[in-house]
């Protein structure tokens, strides 16, 4: 006889949406069961954000050392021999990071008295779920369900995953570096990984169907990244489509219908992610869809009573921090509070070289005042060798009210300022507010202050 659990809440998926929802529900005294087939932390923690950041960090160090070992040296540092990389060891270090974080999540869930069931959930109807566990099937009949099943990489029919065709998941688990890598899709995932591999000495070619990289950002923001690619001999094929595997690489077709082969030992396909909606019984739950995504309202409620959905499975932007914020909202609603998901801005970061951050409105019109300040005018940036990448911080405010409605930046290390950007936009700060906040010297944050002054028309340093 199989075990039957009847919790108040069942959370399906242990990623940054699901585990946060479960912990918050647990904190609020809601009896909660969380089902996860893989490791706790989901895509983000185990095969996305965190491992890619680890790889990017290692690649950055490797590149700096490689520069130091060149004839000219780097900042006066000279290495006698070029650095060597043991990718397997790098991956092991990265896995250690994942291990610690995933173990941390397990501990947090335990502390919140959340029951974790390891296995694949399958719904017979909206409120009946069976999980096949190593110890046998567990039947779960909850009052509320939170669907946090996340997303999976999109596969190209012409380039099915397997062998030398990698998704981001496999690329983050390589034990040996390919000599050459063709990256299909120059969105943020393809660029982050492509740049990391380029720094590690892999010959990288990027293939993008749009006319420029990172097409969702404005050209000014992406230009420093394009410049870096150009300066580091990363091939860039724009307006081009991958046709499939060729004998020794990737066949592509350009806009003018030229067909040729990019030599590549491996191919990384990063053409996007799609919601994980198959194989677990979504079709039995009577839930209204919004295209491929689950349709939710501002409370993250689906069309089926007491079934909620959060994170990538509900649509763009597919970002971990959005999922987590939704998870908190849903948990509090289930605990009887009145909540909704109504952020002013969801920050987005590309950990490219250099990094890009965008918060809120990015395209100003005549109703807006804009202040832009270059990294080259910031002492801290220059002292970190970050001043010459073409980076800048741009603040956009409403002319009438002075209210800051968007902040974008591109430049090395700028990702750590995403928090200030979001705080200013979310709190409804005005340019005068920022002008009145003392920003410590010497830091990159001074550029935020300066950009506000610039928008007010009285910048000091530019």
């Amino acid at each position, binding site marked *: 006889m199989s075990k039957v659990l009847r919790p108040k809440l069942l959370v399906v998926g242990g990623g940054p949406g699901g585990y946060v929802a479960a912990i918050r529900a647990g904190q609020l005294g809601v009896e909660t069961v969380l089902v996860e087939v893989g490791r706790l932390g989901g895509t983000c923690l185990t095969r996305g954000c965190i491992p890619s950041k680890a790889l990017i960090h290692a690649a950055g160090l490797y590149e700096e050392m490689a520069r130091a070992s060149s004839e000219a040296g780097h900042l006066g540092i000279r290495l006698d021999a070029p650095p060597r990389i043991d990718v397997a060891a790098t991956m092991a270090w990265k896995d250690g990071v994942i291990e610690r974080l995933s173990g941390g999540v397990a501990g947090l869930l335990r502390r919140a008295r959340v029951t974790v069931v390891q296995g694949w959930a399958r719904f017979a109807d909206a409120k009946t779920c069976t999980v096949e566990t190593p110890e046998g099937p567990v039947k779960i009949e909850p009052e509320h369900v939170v669907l946090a099943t996340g997303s999976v990489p999109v596969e190209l029919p012409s380039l099915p995953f397997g062998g030398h065709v990698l998704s981001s998941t496999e690329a983050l688990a390589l034990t040996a570096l390919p000599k050459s890598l063709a990256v299909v899709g120059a969105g943020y995932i393809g660029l982050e990984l492509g740049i990391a591999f380029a720094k590690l000495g892999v010959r990288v070619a990027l293939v993008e169907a749009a006319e420029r990289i990172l097409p969702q950002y404005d050209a000014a923001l992406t230009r420093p990244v394009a410049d870096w690619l150009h300066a580091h001999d990363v091939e860039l094929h724009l307006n081009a489509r991958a046709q499939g595997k060729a004998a020794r690489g990737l066949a592509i077709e350009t806009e003018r219908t030229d067909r040729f082969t990019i030599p590549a030992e491996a191919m990384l396909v990063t053409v996007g992610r799609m919601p994980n909606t198959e194989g677990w019984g979504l079709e039995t739950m009577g839930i209204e869809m919004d295209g491929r995504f689950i349709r939710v309202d501002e409370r993250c409620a689906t069309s089926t009573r007491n079934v909620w959905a959060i994170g990538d499975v509900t649509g763009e932007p597919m970002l971990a921090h959005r999922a987590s914020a939704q998870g908190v909202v849903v948990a509090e609603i289930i605990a009887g509070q009145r*909540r909704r998901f109504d952020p002013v801005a969801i920050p987005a970061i590309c950990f490219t070289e250099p990094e890009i951050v965008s918060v809120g409105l990015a395209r100003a019109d005549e109703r807006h005042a804009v202040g832009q300040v270059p990294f080259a005018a910031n002492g801290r940036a220059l002292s970190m060798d970050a001043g010459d990448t073409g980076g800048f911080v741009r603040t956009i405010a409403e002319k009438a*009210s002075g209210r800051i409605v968007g902040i974008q930046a591109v430049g090395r290390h700028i990702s750590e300022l995403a928090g200030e950007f979001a705080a200013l936009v*979310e709190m409804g700060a005005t340019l005068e507010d920022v002008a009145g906040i003392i920003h410590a010297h010497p830091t990159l944050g001074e550029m935020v202050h300066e950009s506000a002054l610039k928008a007010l028309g009285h910048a000091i340093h530019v």
Partner: protein
Amino acid sequence: MGRYLFRLPDVGEGVTEAEIVAWHVKAGDRVREDDNLADVMTDKATVEMTSPVDGTVIAVNGEVGAMAPVGSVLVELEVEGEGNAGEVAEKRVPEAEPAAEPPAPKPKPEVRRDEPIPDTSGSPPFAAPATRRRAYELGIPLQFVPGTGPGGRILPADLDAFIAAGGVARAPGGTGRRTGVTDKPIIGLRRKIAERMQEAKRRIPHISYVEEVDVTELEALRAAVNEGRREGQPKLTLLPFLIRALVRVLPEFPQVNALYDDEADVLHMHEGLHVGIATQTPGGLMVPVLRHAEALDAWGVAREITRLAQAARDGSATREELSGSTITITSLGPLGGIATTPVINRPEVAIIGPNRIVERPVVAGQFISVRKLMNISSSFDHRIVDGYDAALFIQALKRCLEHPALIFMGEGA
């Protein structure tokens, strides 16, 4: 070239001044003979002032809303030839007197005042997340909460203030505090109404009396008459019957159909019945007068009411049609309500206000039947009409209306 001075003519019996309600020309305008220069309002009628000459306007005297004495210069024109300015020099002296009157306070044009709120139209209300969250918990849409923070940011204190002002209860319906104030100068007809109402209430001790009338039979008669009306005959409302009933009843109450000159202490009791019909017009309340109702049958009364109401609404009513009533009827028709406390149209001494007709169950012997009932509200000048007489008068009216045949029978019935 000469100057022509256009003076406010004597526009009516006993009129010594008129209010300028609209200018149709300004300095520099070319005008032709018979062009409208201005509208002025006398006791009740609005009169168009047309130019007697061709010429160019040099100056207009008096703001809209100002009182202009009869004989004062309204418009100065430059005309071909001599003009009439020569005659002016001699008249200068008497003119000094009206000019010495304190000028009427200059009415400002209608303006909207708004308490300063930064224009954040098109963008959602902005507030820190904790404030937004609290507002949502309380069901308060933030777009209705005025923000006093930098750039119009909604502060926690703003939300507190909104709640303290009772914002919570009304929130789901989407109503918040409205801070606009519109200043509208009270001029023209509105000022006239205000003055007359104030004067009536100040001078007349009103006594109001309300009685219920069963109009089932009257309504049946009215329906039958309307059914059989010939082409060209107006549809009869209740009003002609009420007026005919007054014609029938009033001879017994001569002090009710009267004008009281309270300065001379004389009551002018009229034999003829001149009924003021309170009429809502776009500009406000006007009271055209149905003259000699006693000499008209119900059809004639109906026709005359229709014509007068139309004339009042389109502004074509003459001064004669707007004065001389001896008693007034004020009816709100379908908006009639249960009871009103009408204000007497001074110097009359009585006003009648029929209210809405409703069907009600009425106990009749051992049965309950559905009857059409209507209240009649009335006010009397208590200096002239005692409560006892007022009641007798309304009871007599009620008797006629309940037995409509009486309306059409001779005296003594």
